């Protein structure tokens, strides 16, 4: 046999050993002398023995060589968890005998001191605080899947996701012998393939965070610091969540400040719109103001004043989908709300149901900005369809004759809260994130008495109500009422009209049709009759008892 033949024969003999053991040999778990990583033995060639022994193992299962860590671990917990994680058991305990950082890699039953390997370092060291790691050692059975309906019934889990005596262990996600996927994952985490085997979030498959191929434009901080992936869809769950070493422990979010998880992308660096910029405006639902108050398990009616992105948005369901009022748009899909009767709803149907979480029964709702004859800060009561008048949020309005309406709006139209309340600016993202105008109004809406009339002063109203018809038409209501007061007397719309509506519990159709509810900072009682009152007398006619700008109406009729 010549040397070449001998060489080939040797290769042939050795090949099966190496080829068959590709998984472990080339992985970081090969701590033997043939290992590729920094942590490896100086002389030991048997890679199994760092963890396993064939005889007298401890603890007994899995032919284990390493010592029990004996540690008491801090466990994962959250206000929404249904599972009951206990102290690590089974194979998780075995993994932790290196990965909790308390025992040196070389510390095994048989001394490998000559090949001494140090403690686990960096990200692989989970420490004994497991509260920032995905929970383990809890029973995952059909009962759990029934309690948390966003979990797959374990009977339908693929073979690659192994449960140990019905329990999730480290080995459910990791295959310590196979580094085909990063971090020895059982399934690739690209597109969150691994996570979605168990976590079946409602409507996730259609959500923007699942399907967007947006990339990071390179400014600010990269949102994808713990994956190699470069698009929103590839990062999936890990856009926001970090299964190990999460900064925000409960729910394993990337960052401790709630809004940072969202605004790292929604600042124009990944998402096309810059919500972060809206937060800096003087009137905003400013999510930076509150920390650690929001809780996903909180009641529908908000008890402690706060606002976070996730109060209005469900990142698992949120998507680009425009709808018609009053239906909730895709961006606020699957969020909590309060319905027209004040009852909690787990998933809103209508946009106003979301606003009612804070602006109806909540004790921490903002007060009414204008002092009026009839005071009401519960907007749910202001928009009720049984009211004498209201802006058409829940349904079509009461007034069947509104000549100023600009098409396509008609008397039967319904509008969104966000038609008036949203970020100012033509190119601003939709929604009431932040505005330069008070009450997060989309356009200027002057309420100060003696404001000279201009299109700009009442730009908000003039979006739907034609300025020309209101001020210059030949109708009585224009010449005798609106022009006279708004232009000649410089009286704002807001002095006579209450833009939300007048609750039927407080007002009636005779005195409070057409959103009439006087601003009592400007309008006072008529000293002659002692009355402060509007009476409708039918189409475009009515009479007022009041005193305003030094003039008594005792009454004035039109």
């Amino acid at each position, binding site marked *: 046999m010549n040397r070449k033949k001998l060489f080939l024969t040797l290769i042939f003999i050795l090949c099966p050993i190496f080829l068959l053991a590709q998984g472990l040999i080339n992985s970081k778990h090969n701590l*033997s002398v043939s290992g590729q990583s920094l942590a490896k033995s100086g002389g030991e060639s048997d890679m199994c023995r760092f963890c396993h022994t064939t005889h007298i193992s401890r603890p007994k299962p899995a*032919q284990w060589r390493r010592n029990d860590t004996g540690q008491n671990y801090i466990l994962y917990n959250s206000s929404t968890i249904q599972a009951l994680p206990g102290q690590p058991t089974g194979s998780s305990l075995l993994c932790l005998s290196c990965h909790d950082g308390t025992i040196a890699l070389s510390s095994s039953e048989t001394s490998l001191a000559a090949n001494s390997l140090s403690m686990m370092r960096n990200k692989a060291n989970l420490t004994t605080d497991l509260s920032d790691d995905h929970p383990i050692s809890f029973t995952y059975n059909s009962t759990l899947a029934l309690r948390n309906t966003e979990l797959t019934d374990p009977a339908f889990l693929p073979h690659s996701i192994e449960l140990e005596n019905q329990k999730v262990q480290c080995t459910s996600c990791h295959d310590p012998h196979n580094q085909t996927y990063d971090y020895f994952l059982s399934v690739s985490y690209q597109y969150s393939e691994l996570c979605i085997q168990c976590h079946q979030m409602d409507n996730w498959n259609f959500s923007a965070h699942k399907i967007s191929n947006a990339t990071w434009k390179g400014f600010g901080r990269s949102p994808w610091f713990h994956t190699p992936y470069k698009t929103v869809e590839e990062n999936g769950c890990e856009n926001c969540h970090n299964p190990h070493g999460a900064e925000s422990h409960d729910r394993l979010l990337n960052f401790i400040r709630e809004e940072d998880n969202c605004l790292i992308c929604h600042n124009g660096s990944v998402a096309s719109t810059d919500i972060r910029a809206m937060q800096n405006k003087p009137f905003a639902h400013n999510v930076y103001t509150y920390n650690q108050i929001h809780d996903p398990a909180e009641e529908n009616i908000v008890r402690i004043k706060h606002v976070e992105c996730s109060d209005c948005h469900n990142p698992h369901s949120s998507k680009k989908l425009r709808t018609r009022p009053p239906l909730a748009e895709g961006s606020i899909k699957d969020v909590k709300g309060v319905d027209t009767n004040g009852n909690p709803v787990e998933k809103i149907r209508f946009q106003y149901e979301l606003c009612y979480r804070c602006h109806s029964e909540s004790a921490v709702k903002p007060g009414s900005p204008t002092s009026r004859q009839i005071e009401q800060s519960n907007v749910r009561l202001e928009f009720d369809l049984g009211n004498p008048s209201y802006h058409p949020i829940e349904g079509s309005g009461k007034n069947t004759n509104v000549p100023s309406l600009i098409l396509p709006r008609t008397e039967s139209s319904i509008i969104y809260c966000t038609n008036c309340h949203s970020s100012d600016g033509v190119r601003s993202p939709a929604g009431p994130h932040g505005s330069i105008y008070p009450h997060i109004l989309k356009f200027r809406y002057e309420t100060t008495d003696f404001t000279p009339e201009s299109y700009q002063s009442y730009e908000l109203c003039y979006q739907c109500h034609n300025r020309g018809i209101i001020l210059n038409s030949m109708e009585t209501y224009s010449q005798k009422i609106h022009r006279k007061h708004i232009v000649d007397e410089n009286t704002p719309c807001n002095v006579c009209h209450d833009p939300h509506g007048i609750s039927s519990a407080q007002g009636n159709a005779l005195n409070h049709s057409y959103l009439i509810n006087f601003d009592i900072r400007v309008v006072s009682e008529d000293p002659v009759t002692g009355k402060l009152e509007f009476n409708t007398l039918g189409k475009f006619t009515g009479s007022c008892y009041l005193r305003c700008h030094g003039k008594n109406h005792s009454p004035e009729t039109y």
Partner: protein
Amino acid sequence: MMKQLFSLVTIAVVFVFMGTSFGQTPGTGITGSDHDFSSSGWSGGEICIVCHTPHHADNTVSDAPLWNHEVTTATFTPYSSSTLNATVGQPDGVSKLCLSCHDGTVAIDNFGGTTNGSNMINGNELIGTDLSDDHPVSFTYDATLASADGGVYDPTTANSGLGSTIDSDMLTDNKLQCSSCHDVHNGPGAADKLLVMSNANSALCLTCHNK
């Protein structure tokens, strides 16, 4: 170039198969091995007789090769694990014969009808009757198991590294036994701890385990 490569490979192979000796020379036969008790007074200077006899052999254990040693009657605690696909019962066949010394319930010198021996096994060689901390034995390892487990090779097709398949070279009646890993007679090819092959680079483990 080929010559240099050849030298490198040769050196590598020498390193790979270089074992450490513990009082016996691997692969040199039973004489002088840890199973050679001929120097002990109780053996009568013989080697084979401690386990075998040409006549009047004990055949209570099926397939026992002309057995001459007292057989253990202990009840064992078998290995178990939530991820184990194999069915492991009480040790049988060859494994039961091995345990007739190594479980520590029967004296090593209880052979040929003697039952009052006093030399009990000890140290690392004492396995005991609790087998839950030992690699499982006496279970059927066939293509069905390989398919169900997914982590071990099909023994009917996988190369044992000993000339043929795992089933042919390492199993007895399709079962894994002590003799699958250990060559009790320290035959040619035997390595440290009477292993049937060297476990350098975990070669023995990886013969079956697809890791």
